[in-house]
């Protein structure tokens, strides 16, 4: 009984999962093309930054992107399976040793850089 219940929910959720996004990890620099409705117009905004967190929870998965804009740190959380994400580009792959890069919040400038996978 319980498993049948679970599978109904799973079927509903798996139908909504987005499988078209490229694989990306914490530490990667990504550009998120996000659809925004302004009044009655639809436009696409690009948010480019470092992925500092991935919350892996099936349909409810999210990821957080951090960028520094005009010397102010901006973090934005995206729903991974949201249809509002038009496209996700992986700009570069980073090498990090943590799953959550919260330490970046305390660092600025050169110290806040992340080693590129190609430079290893």
């Amino acid at each position, binding site marked *: 009984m*319980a498993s049948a*219940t*679970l599978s*109904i929910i799973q079927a*509903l959720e798996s139908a*909504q999962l987005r499988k078209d996004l490229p694989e990306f990890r914490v530490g990667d620099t990504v550009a998120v093309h996000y659809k925004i409705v302004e009044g009655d117009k639809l436009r696409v905004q690009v948010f480019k930054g470092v992925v500092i967190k991935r919350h892996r929870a099936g349909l409810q998965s999210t990821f957080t992107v951090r960028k520094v804009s005009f010397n102010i740190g901006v973090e934005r959380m995206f729903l991974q399976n*949201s249809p509002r994400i038009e496209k996700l580009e992986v700009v570069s792959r980073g090498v990090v040793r943590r799953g959550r890069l919260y330490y970046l919040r305390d660092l600025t400038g050169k110290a806040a850089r992340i080693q590129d996978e190609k430079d290893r």
Partner: protein
Amino acid sequence: MNQFPGVIGRKIGMTQLFLEDGSVVPCTVVESNVIVVGKRTQEKDGYDAVILGSGERKEKHTSKALAGAFKKAGVEPRRTLRELRCQADFAASVEVGAALKVDQLFEAGQFVDVQGTTKGRGFTGVMRRHHFAGNVRTHGTHEYRRHGGSIGTNMTPGRVKKGMKMPGQHGNKTRSVLNQKIVKVVPEQNLILIHGGIPGARNGLVFVRGAVKRHGGKAS
């Protein structure tokens, strides 16, 4: 009285749904599998209703009287039976023995009332049951931290007022939530996705019917 058509259902659980514009709605999934077991008519019984049946009932759990009623209707024995008061024309439009599909009765965007039995929490104190504040933790409080305090005055009126909030059974009561919106109907699996929460635990029995305060809840 709510005379709008409805179904007996089983609460499957909660999930979320992305709408086309990208907004997310939390919703409860209800599975419904009902057939019409019988009818009540104005001429014979003094009111109009359909009797709905849901779930499986084993033969050994079926009394002979019930078995006879099911046989007369020409359907397999059902575990849950419920009368649904309805308008005469709805009763006339369904046949005994026929299955009631969710897409026959409900549509996305419709408002419904959902009745269910809330999760039982047993005998519970006032802090949990009625959200009392309790007493101060410190300053010498002795064995009086989660108590309810005074329950009334002395000689006048000389009794405790009716409806005084005190400890007791919490939950396991029939409760309804009104005016919940249907987000989606999945006819293939007989599922209804209702915006927000509904009473009861997973696998609990619920009754879904058109919203009484919105004239059945349909848009038209």
